[in-house]
């Protein structure tokens, strides 16, 4: 089959073959041809040629999306004026939060600034979905790279439909809801359809709503502490700081547990006593000085000066790296129970 479409592919440093977490601060650069999953993409869709691959470090984009996106547009603009590509494909990012943010931001920017159709792919619970789903096409994927072939098989047909300006639908074309309403013709009136659904519900039969209600999971802000100098503070982290050797073997990704660790007698964390178990960022700096993630030294200093009443004897740690929302909720509930029982009044929760 001859080449019909030319696309630009965007990948993070892992998938782009530049390196691991130690390369997460790499600025974006443009390479000609396909890299990593782009090879699979071209093999599965012989009518597509990847003209260029843009590769960026996860942290470089996620820490400062606005500046990074301007830089990326600067790289892509000359490219898009001569020999304009048909489509931009970003990712898939699966359940990777930083990667998802980058993919969403790039897709939105090239659609709006370069008028180029764009598609990405993510797991529905990826935190970037809520940020970008209204403005971009996010194909549904599994939560990890095992689902690469399916993700590509979902993203590309959707992207090509956008190029050809064909009609797309979330359910049929496998992308996440954008919150758009479309007018369609149906045989039965709304009243009749609603009553049919109601009867089905009353009879305990299955039915599909035409307007799923959004789920807002929000916690009311708790009242402030009147005087931290009188209050009991606890430290919690999703940054994976654990005693040296990771005694509970908290997983580097998709954590299945949290740890409870004593701070008694400790004035600061150190490379000798603590380390990170987190597999989602370069551990060099946290392992050199774990206070960079869980700032015990500063907290103890402020406690000694009376700015903090007292520090709870334990801290609680898990790894927030592709950890499921259900597990995180469960750990939060369990930790909250202990904190309430121990009379803790305020919490600093640190995340990487």
């Amino acid at each position, binding site marked *: 089959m001859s080449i019909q479409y030319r696309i630009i592919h965007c990948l993070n440093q892992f998938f782009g073959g530049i390196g691991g977490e130690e390369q*997460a601060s790499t600025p974006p650069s443009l390479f000609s041809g396909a890299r990593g999953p782009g090879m699979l993409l071209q093999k599965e869709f012989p009518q597509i040629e990847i003209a260029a691959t843009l590769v960026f470090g996860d*942290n470089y984009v*996620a*820490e400062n*999306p606005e500046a990074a996106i301007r830089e990326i547009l600067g790289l892509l603009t000359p490219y898009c004026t001569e020999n304009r590509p048909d489509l931009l494909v970003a990712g898939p990012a699966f359940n990777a*939060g*930083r990667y998802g943010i980058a993919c969403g931001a790039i897709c939105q920017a090239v659609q709006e600034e370069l008028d180029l159709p764009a598609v990405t792919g993510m797991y529905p619970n990826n*935190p970037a979905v*809520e*940020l970008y789903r209204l403005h971009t096409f996010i194909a549904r994927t599994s939560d990890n790279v095992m689902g690469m072939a399916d993700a590509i098989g979902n993203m590309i047909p959707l992207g090509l439909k956008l190029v050809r300006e064909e009609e797309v639908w979330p359910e049929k074309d496998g992308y996440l809801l954008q919150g758009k309403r479309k007018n369609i013709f149906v045989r039965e009136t709304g009243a009749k359809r609603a009553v049919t659904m109601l009867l089905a519900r009353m009879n305990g039969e299955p039915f599909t709503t035409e307007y799923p209600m959004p789920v807002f999971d*929000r*916690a*009311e*802000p*708790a*009242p*402030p*502490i*009147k*005087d*931290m100098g009188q*209050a009991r503070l606890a430290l*919690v982290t*999703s*940054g994976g700081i654990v005693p040296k050797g990771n005694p509970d073997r908290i997983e580097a990704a998709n954590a299945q547990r949290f740890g409870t660790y004593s701070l008694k007698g400790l004035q600061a964390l150190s490379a000798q006593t603590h380390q990170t178990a987190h597999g989602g*960022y370069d*551990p*060099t*700096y*946290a392992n*050199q000085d774990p*206070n*960079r*993630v869980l*700032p015990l*030294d*500063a*907290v103890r200093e*402020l406690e000694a000066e009376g*700015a*903090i009443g007292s520090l709870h004897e334990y801290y609680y740690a898990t790894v927030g790296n592709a950890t499921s929302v259900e597990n*995180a*909720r469960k*750990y*939060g*509930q369990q*930790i*909250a*129970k202990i*904190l*309430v029982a121990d009379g*803790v*009044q*305020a*919490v*600093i*929760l*640190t*995340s*990487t």
Partner: protein
Amino acid sequence: MVKEIERSGIPVVHACSIVPISLTVGGNRIVPTIAIPHPFGRPDKSIAEEKALRRQLVEKALHALQTPIEKQTVFE
């Protein structure tokens, strides 16, 4: 985790480097930190400067815990 602890009535300050994620998942008191691999650190500075910056961030977090809020608030 932030929300579940907050639901128990204990105010939580979320100190994190990717503020949009905290806003999306429902953090109420948010303090932006320095960088993903070292939220409370600046490895390029001297140890004294780094410690001073870390202390400032913790003080900001304590300030957030003592501030009444009605809605999600980022303490820049």
